[in-house]
């Protein structure tokens, strides 16, 4: 346990010294503040709104930015130690490769959790005070699931970092993974489902990916404001909320969206299944990373 913690705290301290943590905190705080203030501009509202409406605005930000930050952090964790040849010295000293990888992961989690938690805490407090809103549940769900989303992508980044020989290679692969998870997966899934004439599943995909589209996001806000009726498709979907949208579980970003979509558009992704999906991604990424690392000649 001690080597693991030593490696983790060194990683956090290195990132802090290099300015990564501070830069990440600044970017995150800036983005979260702008989104909270201007996220409802599409329906003509400026300023801090209640928690539930802010959550809809923040959905886009979290689903794009958190996986990107996590992958940018994770892709560098192992490959830099290999390139600098410090990994050989650590392993030769009697620290197992699995401990090195888990220590790096833990250090990455600390590094990522610091700015994210700080951003959510400050934004949550500001919203609570400015909007005098006490229904903090949806915001807490967003914050917690956003952190989990980051941790999953950090593990994926670490796997990429372990499999690549150079930092450039790892960076390219990490960016491709981000594009794949955030943009490409939904398009491919939609195409596959539509081509197989599964209309209901296509509707579910469309709903879950609505948060990607500005106009649809505006519709979701309106649904909250009670200014219009929810789209018929959403209403019909809510009635079938028990449908198991198993395809959602493949992509952590879609799991995150499904967990956080507001009630009118809610999809039934049971929490135990969402948790199992997250654990599976973590297990595969970390297990795969350890398996690969043990087969690398240093």
């Amino acid at each position: 346990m001690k080597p693991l913690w030593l490696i983790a705290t060194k990683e956090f301290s290195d990132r802090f010294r290099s300015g990564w943590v501070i830069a990440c905190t600044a970017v995150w705080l800036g983005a979260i503040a702008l989104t909270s203030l201007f996220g409802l501009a599409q329906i003509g509202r400026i300023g801090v709104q209640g928690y539930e409406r802010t959550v809809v605005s923040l959905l886009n930000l979290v689903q794009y930015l958190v996986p990107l930050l996590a992958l940018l952090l994770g892709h560098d964790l192992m490959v830099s130690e290999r390139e600098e040849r410090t990994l050989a010295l650590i392993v030769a000293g009697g620290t197992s490769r699995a401990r090195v990888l888990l220590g790096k992961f833990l250090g990455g989690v600390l590094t990522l959790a610091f700015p994210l938690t700080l951003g959510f805490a400050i934004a949550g407090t500001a919203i609570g005070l400015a909007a005098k809103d006490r229904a903090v549940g949806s915001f807490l769900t967003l914050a917690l699931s956003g952190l989990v989303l980051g941790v999953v992508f950090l593990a994926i980044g670490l796997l990429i970092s372990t499999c690549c020989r150079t930092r450039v290679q790892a960076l390219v692969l990490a960016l491709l993974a981000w594009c794949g998870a955030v943009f490409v997966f939904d398009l491919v899934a939609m195409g596959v489902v539509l081509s197989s004439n599964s209309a209901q599943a296509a509707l579910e995909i469309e709903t879950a990916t609505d948060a990607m589209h500005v106009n649809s996001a505006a519709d979701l806000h309106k649904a909250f404001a009670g200014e219009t009726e929810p789209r018929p498709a959403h209403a019909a979907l809510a009635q079938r909320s028990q449908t198991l949208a198993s395809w959602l579980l493949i992509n952590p970003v879609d799991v995150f969206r499904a967990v956080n979509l507001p009630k009118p558009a809610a999809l039934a992704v049971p929490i135990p299944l969402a948790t199992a999906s997250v654990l599976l991604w973590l297990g595969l990424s970390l297990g795969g990373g350890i398996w690969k690392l043990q087969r690398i000649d240093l």
Partner: protein
Amino acid sequence: MNACLEFNQVAKRYGSVRALAGVELAVAAGSILALLGPNGAGKSTLFGCLLGLIRPSRGEVLWQGQPIRDADRRAVFGYLPERIALYPHRTVRDNGLFFARLKGHPPAELERQLKRVGLYAAQDRPVRQLSKGMLQRLGLALALCGQPQVLVLDEPFNGLDPALLDGLQGILQEEHARGATLLISTHTMSAIEPLATHAAILLEGRLAARGSLGELRAQHGEDSLEAVYHRIARRQRSREREEVIA
């Protein structure tokens, strides 16, 4: 011979390239083994197999009769790589503390070793500001931390001026005197000859000769380790030429 380390038919291939071809070598406890050979002979690969950095394609390394599979069993080794790689933006002390703590050694032990190699005064300097000789001494201090039972030194004499070389030889003699086993790969025959008790010569991944220094000198009718090495290397080259002609 009371062997503490045994290389049992250790072989390593990188695709079609053969780095080690079934090396069979026993290292006596408390000895200083000089591992000699030209560049690319497989010396660093052999050390890599011992330290868990490289997975042998075949064979295994035994420590006190047991295969070294568990990383914890490698805590008895102190290792100085050929090119020491540390965290350049961190200070000598920070680097030292990180690696010493990983092996479970207290800060006092690091301080003792830094004083021993003459780097204590530079402990607050970032590693990127160190000269090659200072970096080598820092690497040695890290390898010496915790009085390891086996010291594995890969080309430790490279790039050292005569004063540093003399200091390093003194430290290695002290380590030998306290009972440590030393494995040293080098091209600098003049530096290793006064220290080594045994020698092994690797040529193209094969062990061409091994034994105590006295045995090797007597066997090949030479009066220095360097002459023995050149004789064996010449013989190997002429054998290869004959094979090509045949």
